[in-house]
């Protein structure tokens, strides 16, 4: 049962990922990226990380991608034009990419024993929260400071002076 769900949503994630990279218009890429994030959220749920699955949808799909979509609409640049890069790069690019992926996949397949199974382990908000506020308290506080700096930076950068 878990294998069926995994295969379905893994295939969906790869299909959406392909579309992110292949689509001409940035809005289409953004929507397919939302598809990747939601299918990954299902996979996190399958792994037992329920809190992370919900956080993935709320933070990534529901906030970061909304930011992307709104910036794309604000800028309204339109579809990407065909590039006039070198023929050699176009011919070699795809086979080399396929080769890289094949090597990566093969190495990972060989490195993990076939008996290494992953079942759903505990991942409730309680567990993640306990770890965040005890072992990882310093990184947590530093990350919140980082987010504050990012907010200030974004506001300062995008601010238009009203003359």
């Amino acid at each position, binding site marked *: 049962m878990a294998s069926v769900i995994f295969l379905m949503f893994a295939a969906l994630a790869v299909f959406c990922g392909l579309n992110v990279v292949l689509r001409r218009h940035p*809005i289409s890429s953004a*929507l397919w990226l*939302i598809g990747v994030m939601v299918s990954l959220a299902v996979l996190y749920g399958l792994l037992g990380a*329920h*809190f992370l*699955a*919900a*956080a993935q*949808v*709320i933070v990534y*799909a*529901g*906030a970061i991608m*909304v930011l992307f*979509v*709104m910036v794309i*609409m604000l800028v309204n640049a339109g579809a990407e034009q065909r590039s006039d890069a070198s023929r050699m790069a176009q011919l070699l690019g795809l086979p080399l990419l396929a080769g890289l992926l094949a090597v990566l996949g093969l190495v990972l397949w060989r490195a993990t024993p076939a008996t290494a199974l992953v079942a759903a382990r505990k991942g*409730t*908000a309680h567990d993640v929260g306990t770890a965040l506020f005890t072992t990882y308290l310093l990184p947590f506080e530093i990350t919140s400071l980082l987010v504050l700096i990012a907010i200030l930076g974004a506001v300062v950068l995008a601010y238009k002076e009203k003359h």
Partner: protein
Amino acid sequence: MNPYLLMVLKAAVVLAALLATLLYIQWVERKVIAHIQRRLGPYRVGPHGLLQPVADTLKLLLKEDLLPGHVNRFLYLLAPFLAVTLALISIAVIPFGPQIELAGVRTWMQLTDLNVGVLFVLAISSLTVYAIVLAGWSSNSKYPLLGGLRSAAQMIGYELPLGMAVAAPLLMSGSLSLREIVLGQQPFAGGIVPGWNIFRLPFPQVISFVVFLIAAFAETNRIPFDLPEAENELVAGFHTEYSSLKFASFFMAEYANMITVCAMATALFLGGWLPPCPAEYGSDYAPSVVLAVAGALLLYHGLPSAFRRDRLTLPAAGLAALAAAAVFLIPAVQNLLVPLFWFLAKTGFLLFVFIWVRGTLPRLRYDQLMRFTWTFLFPVGVLNLMATGLVVALGA
């Protein structure tokens, strides 16, 4: 019984009930707003306009289904579908009642209980922004685009106070599962005062409740925050270019979101399906009393009425209400349906508040709306969360 079959049956029942409610909440809204404005509302189509929603649905279905040439076709068709789907999904984690036993099958009156139920509802509500933004963008026209972007900014701006308002009762309940939250409100303080989160010591969540309701008004694009779909400001906002069933889908999604948000408020703040006083004090007889009073009022107003239509329909409705009151006196029915009655009563009251506010308040201008959330509602939500956290930590 096969658990999958049980799940399918429960889902079918909830979906049927939800769709019927969606149809008739429109009628209730029109009647309530009409009576606030001292007129009758739908009256002719069926007795007291009860067939008006059917007539409206037929009208919308039979209208010409346009697909304008200048729209981005895939996104144009995706947006209403997304709106309705997301609006109907979040009902799955709302608890309607306790565990019941019906014909040998023991089950909770809830479709599924996720241990991150509250986060699930928040996640779905943060995805509904896309439906509106895509509707505005795909229409390739300036009024829908403006309406869509404004609505997106409004919904994102009010999502934060919503999250803060939801987090405060979570601190007191100690769980993200809606079932656990409702069960945690069961103990009666001093034997009489209900332990609902809105009254619960050490920190009654009244501010959270108010912040949640205001943020909910904005999340569902209702007055006073409905500028994105205002008819006299932006033509019709983000659904200008839509017709027929796709147009109806957006309204269905808005009402479904309203129901979900009221149900969430009931579960989080008003104690879900719990009665306001213990069963020893006769709270099990409350449905009978309410229905009997309603029946008596209908008979009292219907019999001497000037209109012949009222003389026939109102007493008939009154007699039906009295019959229902009699049915509620049967103990078997009481065990099964009284918690559901409390849940529906509380949710219904909140829906009435939504409709009441629509008939009463004017619309906020866009900059007033955004200023309100970022300079007032969000800080209030954060301070309330901090105060709750402090009180809970000091008490624990």
